[in-house]
C-alpha cells in the first residue's frame, strides 16, 4: 500500500500554493463541513483526543487535552481566542513554512476547527516576519476563505462565527514560546508569562486562548474528515499520524518528508536524505532542532517518536534534524548554537541571560584557541544551572541540551581544542 501523506500530498510540486479550488477538490474543508453539520465542539475535541494527536511544536502536549482546558458554555469570559503559532524560529526547522506556503487553506481549516472545538471568536496566525511568501499566501487564502463562507458570520450557514487575523511578528525566538507569543501579540516585550494561569484559562488579553503549532493544526482537518481510526493507522508507533521530518546539514538531499510517525533516524537519513555527502562520515544528529540533545551512531535505529527519542536521551522536538559530519567542528557547532540562544534570551531570568552569555563566551574563546582546562567544568556547571525549573521558561534548558550532549559525546574534541589551543578543524 502506498504510504499516505495527508498533510503534503496535495501540495503542488511547482512551488505554487494550492488554490482554494484545488484544496476543495483534494477533500479540503470536508472536515469543517462535517464538524459543523454533525459534531458538537466537544465531539471535535473528543475525536482529536482519540486520534492521539500531540503538539508538533516541540513539547508534544496532547492537543485534544489542551483544548479541553478551555472553559466552555455561555457564562465564560469572551472573546475566546485560538492562535496558530507560525513563529518557526528553531534553527534547522522549516516544516511549517513548507506547509503554509504550499497549502495555506489546510492551516486555515485546521485553525477554524480548533476555534470551533473551543468555541473561540477570534483566530490569529502569528507568523514569523521573515516568512514573506507564506504571509502573502495566507493573506490571500484568508480572504478567499471569507468569500467562500468559511470565515466570518454564519460559517457554512451554521451559527458559528470566526474572524481570522494574520499577525506578522516583529520576530524573536521567544515568540515561539506560547506565552511569549501572547505578550508579543499584546504589544509587550516577548517575555514568557508565569504559569498558572495557563493560556486556555487566561491567555491573550486575559481571555481563554489556545495556541497550537502549524503542523499540529494541519492534522486536524484530516482527523475530523476521516476519523481517528484512520489517523491512528497512519503511524508505525504509539504516537499517531504522520510527521513532517526534515534533515539539514551535509547530507546528499536535505529536505522535508512526510512519513509515518516512528520512522527511524536511519531510514530518514539514508533513504530520504540520501546519506552523507561523499567523503563525509556521520558523527551525530540533533533529532528535533537546535534545542535537543545530540544523538550519535548508536542511536540511528531509534524510531522518531516522542517516547523513543526521549528514551535515547533526546527529544523529538520539531522532528527536523541537523546532522553533524566528521569534517565539521562539534565545538564550533555548539558554539554557534549557544550564540544563537544567548542572543535570543529575552533577558528576564538570571540563569538564562547570564549563563548562556557566559557559555557563549567560553565556547567562542575555545574556538579561538584560548580555551582552558577549567572551562569544561564551567560549561558542565552551566548545563546543570540551566536545568528545567531553574529558569523561568524552557529556552535555556533547551539551549543546554546540545551543550550537555556535546560535552558527553564529543568531550575529546573539547579537550583537544584546549590542549592544542586552536580549533583542529580550522
Amino acid at each position, binding site marked *: 500500500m502506498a504510504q499516505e501523506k495527508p498533510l503534503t500530498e496535495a501540495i503542488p510540486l511547482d512551488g505554487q500554493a494550492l488554490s482554494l479550488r484545488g484544496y476543495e477538490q483534494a477533500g479540503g474543508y470536508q472536515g469543517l463541513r462535517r464538524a459543523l453539520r454533525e459534531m458538537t465542539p466537544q465531539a471535535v475535541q473528543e475525536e482529536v483526543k482519540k486520534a492521539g494527536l500531540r503538539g508538533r511544536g516541540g513539547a508534544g502536549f496532547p492537543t485534544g487535552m489542551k483544548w479541553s482546558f478551555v472553559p466552555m458554555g455561555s457564562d465564560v469570559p469572551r472573546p475566546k481566542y485560538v492562535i496558530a503559532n507560525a513563529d518557526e524560529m528553531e534553527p534547522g526547522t522549516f516544516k511549517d513554512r513548507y506547509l503554509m506556503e504550499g497549502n495555506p487553506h489546510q492551516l486555515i481549516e485546521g485553525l477554524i476547527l480548533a476555534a470551533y472545538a473551543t468555541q473561540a471568536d477570534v483566530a490569529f496566525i502569528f507568523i514569523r516576519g521573515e516568512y514573506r511568501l507564506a504571509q502573502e499566501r495566507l493573506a490571500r487564502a484568508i480572504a478567499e476563505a471569507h468569500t467562500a463562507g468559511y470565515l466570518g458570520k454564519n460559517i457554512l450557514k451554521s451559527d458559528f462565527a470566526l474572524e481570522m487575523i494574520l499577525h506578522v511578528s516583529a520576530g*524573536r525566538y*521567544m515568540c515561539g514560546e506560547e506565552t511569549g507569543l501572547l505578550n508579543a501579540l499584546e504589544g509587550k*516585550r516577548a517575555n514568557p*508569562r*508565569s*504559569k*498558572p*494561569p495557563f493560556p486556555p*484559562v*487566561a491567555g491573550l*488579553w*486575559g481571555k481563554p486562548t489556545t495556541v497550537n503549532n502549524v503542523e499540529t493544526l494541519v492534522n486536524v482537518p484530516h482527523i475530523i474528515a476521516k476519523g481517528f481510526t484512520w489517523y491512528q493507522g497512519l503511524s508505525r508507533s504509539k504516537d499517531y499520524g504522520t510527521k513532517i521530518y526534515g534533515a539539514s546539514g551535509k547530507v546528499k538531499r536535505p529536505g522535508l518528508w512526510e512519513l509515518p510517525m516512528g520512522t527511524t533516524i536511519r531510514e530518514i537519513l539514508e533513504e530520504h536524505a540520501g546519506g552523507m555527502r561523499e567523503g563525509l562520515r556521520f558523527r551525530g544528529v540533533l533529532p528535533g532542532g537546535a534545542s535537543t540533545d545530540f544523538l550519535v551512531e548508536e542511536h540511528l535505529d531509534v524510531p522518531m517518536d516522542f517516547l523513543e527519542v526521549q528514551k535515547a536521551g533526546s527529544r523529538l522536538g520539531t522532528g527536523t534534524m541537523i546532522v553533524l559530519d566528521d569534517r565539521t567542528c562539534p565545538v564550533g557547532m555548539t558554539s554557534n548554537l549557544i550564540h544563537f540562544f*544567548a*542572543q*535570543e*534570551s*529575552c*533577558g*528576564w*531570568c*538570571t*540563569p538564562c*541571560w*547570564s*549563563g548562556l*552569555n*557566559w557559555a557563549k*563566551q567560553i565556547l567562542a*574563546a575555545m574556538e579561538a584557541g584560548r580555551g582552558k582546562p*577549567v572551562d569544561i567544568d*564551567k560549561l558542565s*556547571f552551566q548545563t546543570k*544551572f540551566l*536545568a528545567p*525549573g*531553574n*529558569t*523561568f521558561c524552557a529556552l535555556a534548558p533547551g539551549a543546554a541540551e546540545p551543550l550537555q550532549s556535546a560535552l558527553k559525546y564529543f568531550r575529546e574534541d573539547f579537550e583537544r581544542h584546549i590542549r592544542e589551543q586552536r580549533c583542529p578543524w580550522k
Partner: protein
Amino acid sequence: MGTIYIDGKPYEADPQNNLLHVCLSLGFDLPYFCWHPALNSVGACRQCAIKQFKGEQDKKGKLVMACMTPASPDTRISLLDPDAVAFRAGIIEGMMLSHPHDCPVCDEGGECHLQDMTVMTGHDYRRAEFQKRTFRNQDLGPFLNHEMNRCIQCYRCVRFYRQYAGGKDLNAFSINNTVYFGRNEDGVLENEFAGNLVEVCPTGVFTDRTLKQHYTRKWDLRMAPSVCGHCGVGCNVTLGERYSLLRRVVNRFNSEVNGYFLCDRGRFAYEFVNSPNRIRTPQLDGEAISGEAAEWEFQNLTSSRDRLIGIGSPRASLEANFALRQLVGADRFFAGVESKEWTLITTMIDILKRGPARSPALNEIEHSDAVLILGEDVTNSAPRMALSLRQSVRQQPMEIAKKLQVPLWMDDAVREVVQDQRGPFFISAPFATRLDDIAAITYRAAPDDAARLGFAVAHEIDANAPPVPGLHEKMRAMARVIADALKKAKRPLVVSGPSCRSLAVVESAANVAKALCGFSQPAMLGLLTPECNSFGLALLGAHALDEAVALTGKDATVIVLENDLYRRLPLEKADALLGSAARVIVLEHLSNTTSARASLLLPAATIAESDGTLVSNEGRAQRYFSVFPHQAEVRESWRWLRKPQWSSLDDVLSDLAKEVPQLAAVVNAAPSSKFRVDGAKVPREPHRASGRTAMTANLTVVEPKPPVDPDSALSYTMEGAPLQPPGALQPFFWSPGWNSIQSVNKFQSEIGASLRTGDPGVRLIKPSGKGEYFTQIPSHFVRREREWLVIPIEHIFGTEELSQHAPAIATLAFKPYLALNASDAGSLGLANEGEELEIELGGAKHRLPAKILPDLPAGVAGIPNGLDFAFGEVFPTWRRIERVS
C-alpha cells in the same frame, strides 16, 4: 494557618502567602532581588531558590523559587540544601559577570542589597574572565543618578515605575544580558515618585543625585526618625546628617501611612535646611546679637502680656504653636491662615469629628475599592496619597484573580488576568489630573459644579440628602453611575480638600460620605490639608489671621511663628498688621518678606533640628526628632517661646495635654525623653559610624563630649541599646547582614505588616456622630462676559513654600503662566501658547504667558498656586484678562 517544614522543623504559615514571604517573616535569611514586598512576585531573578520535597520520603527534592511557590500546608522545603545553596551562589555569580565591582566609588556601597545578598550567598570568587558589557548612562534630571553598568536586570525599577506608579517614560529596552532600563532619550523622569527608585533599585543604578552633592555613607550618617513637613499627609521619613549638613531623606516604613514609598517632593525638599537663606543668628533691628541677648530682648518685649498678638503657623509644630498660644493667651492667638482657608480647615475637622465617616490612613486608601475625588488634583496637592489612590483601582479586579485561583502575590499573573480592568474611580476636578488615566469618569468643572455633582451623588445614594435644584439630566445620570458604584463597594472612599477654595465642594464630599455610611458599609472620607500641621493648629484652636489685623496697633507686639504673612494676606493687610505694630518678633528658618520686617528676629530650628508633633490630614499625631545636635543660636521655636518652668519637650507636651483635652493623646505619639531601651537611649548613629574622635580633630584634639538630648529618648551618638525601639523612635533600619533599607524586613511583625514595636502615630480624630447633611447647594457655574473665574492650580514642585529652597526641586518648579481653555484663548485673540496675557492680581497688573489647558471649563482661568504676586488673593476670584497687544 497551616504547618510547613523548613529544614525539618515545623513552622506556622499562612497558605495565602508565598514561601519567600513566609521565610523572611520567620526571620530566615533568604536572598532575593526581583521580589519586593509592595511589588510582589514575578520569578525573574531566581535568587530565592530553595529545595522542595514531595513528602517526608522524598530525599531528592526539586529546586523551586520560594517567591513563586505557595506556602501550602505540609510543604517541606530546605534552605540549606547544598543544591539550593550552590544555585543561589550561581545566580549571584551570573549577576556579577558584568557588574563593575565598583563598590568603593558607588553611592550604594554600604547600603547595597546586592552587596548584602552576595555576602549572604557566599559567592566570593570571580571565575569569569571576559569583558563586561557596558552601557551609556542617561541624565535623568536633578533627582537621580543613572549608572546602568551596575544593573543586574531584576526589573524592579520598571515594575515600580510603570505598574505601581503609573509612569510611562522609563522602560526596559533590548534583550539578553543587555537589557537597558532608562528613558528613550535623556531627560527628567516625569513621574512624581521616581525618587523611590533609589530604594527600589537593589544596587547602584539609580542613586540619589542630591546626596551625591554632599555624599556620606549610610554608616557614617547620624539619623533620626522624622515626619515629612511638605504637605499634609505626614509620611514618615528618616533624615541623615553629618558635619552639620542634612545629607538626605529616605523612607521610614510605617505600614499604615507611607509604607515603602515617598513622593519626590518629600524626598528631595530636605535641602532647604542647608539653604544659604537660613537665619542662623538672632537679629535686633537688623543687627546680629547673641542668643543670650536675644533671649533677654524677647523676655523684655513680651513681659507685658496684654499687648501681645501671636500668629501661629500650620507648618510649625503643635508644641511651638502651643507655646505661642500660652504666651499670648488664646484670645490673641491667630492661626496664621486667612479666614477662607481657615474656615475650610476648621470645617473639615468638624466634619471628621461629627460625621460618621472615618478619615483613612494611606493604607486604607490603597485598599479602598471605589473612589470619588471631588475638586482635588491629588498628585499635586498630597502627592503620596495619589500613589495609594492609584493602587485602589486594583482592588475590585482582584476578584477575577481570586476566581481563577491565581495567588494575589503572583504579580504578573494577576496583571495578565486583570488586564486593564479597574475598580470604579471617579474624578471631578477643574482640569486634567495625573490620575485621570485610571478614572472611569472624569468631570471637568468649576468648583460650584464639582460641588453640585457631589451633592447629586449624595442624593442618589440617600434620598434624604438634599436634592440639587435645577440639576441637568446628564449630571443626574453621571451621579447615578457614581452612586451605584460607591454603593456596591465594600470600602468606598470619598476624597476632597481645600484646593478649590470651596466650602461647597468639601461639604458635598461630606454629604456623599454620610449618605454612604447610612447606606451600608462605613465609608471613608479623606480630606486633604494644605500644610503639614493644618489639622494640628485647628485642633489647638485659633482665630483666623484676618482678625489680627484689627487688633494691631502702636501698643501691640506681634509675634510671628514660622510664617510668611505676605503669603497669607494681601500686601496692604500684611503691611498694616506688621507696620502698625510697635514691635514685630519673628521666629523663622529662612529669610522672607515677613522676617525682613522683624525688629527681633529669632532663628527657628527646622524640622530637622527640632523635636515636635504634627497632625496629618488623617488626624494622626506624629512626632519628629532632631537629627542635628545643638546648633549655635538656632533653637526650637517652642524653646524661644517657652515658659520658665519648661525644660524639655515633655514639659510642653504635658501642659498641652492638660490645657487642650482634645490633644491629650499627642503625648503618646512617641515615648517620652525618660524612655529607655534596656536602660539606654536609642542611638542615632549606627555602631559603625566612623570618625568620632577625628571629625573635629582639626579644631581640637580633645574628643568632644557626646551631645546631650534633653528632649528625646534618642542619643546623638552610637551609644545606646542595639535593640529594636518603639516604632516612633526607630532612627534607621539596619540589621546584621542587611545594610540596605530592605533591612526593614527584620523589623516588621510580618513582611509588609506593622513594625514589631508598633507603627508610629496616634489618631486624634474619631467620627463620633452621624453628622448633618449640608444644605447650601450652589447654583451652577455661569461664566461671565469678559471676566474669568481664576482658580489656583497646585504644583508638586513650586507651590509648597520651603521645598522651593531645595535646589533640585527649584529646577523643576513651575514657570509662571495663566491657563485658559483653547476656545477662551481664541476668544481673546491668542494664536499661540506663550503669548502674554494681562491680569490684575495682588493689586497690580501682571503679564503672564498663556498656557492652554484644554479641559479647563469655559470661563475659568488658572494660575499656579505659589506665584509670589498672587499671594494674599482669596481664590477663586473674578478677573478681567486681556491680551497684551
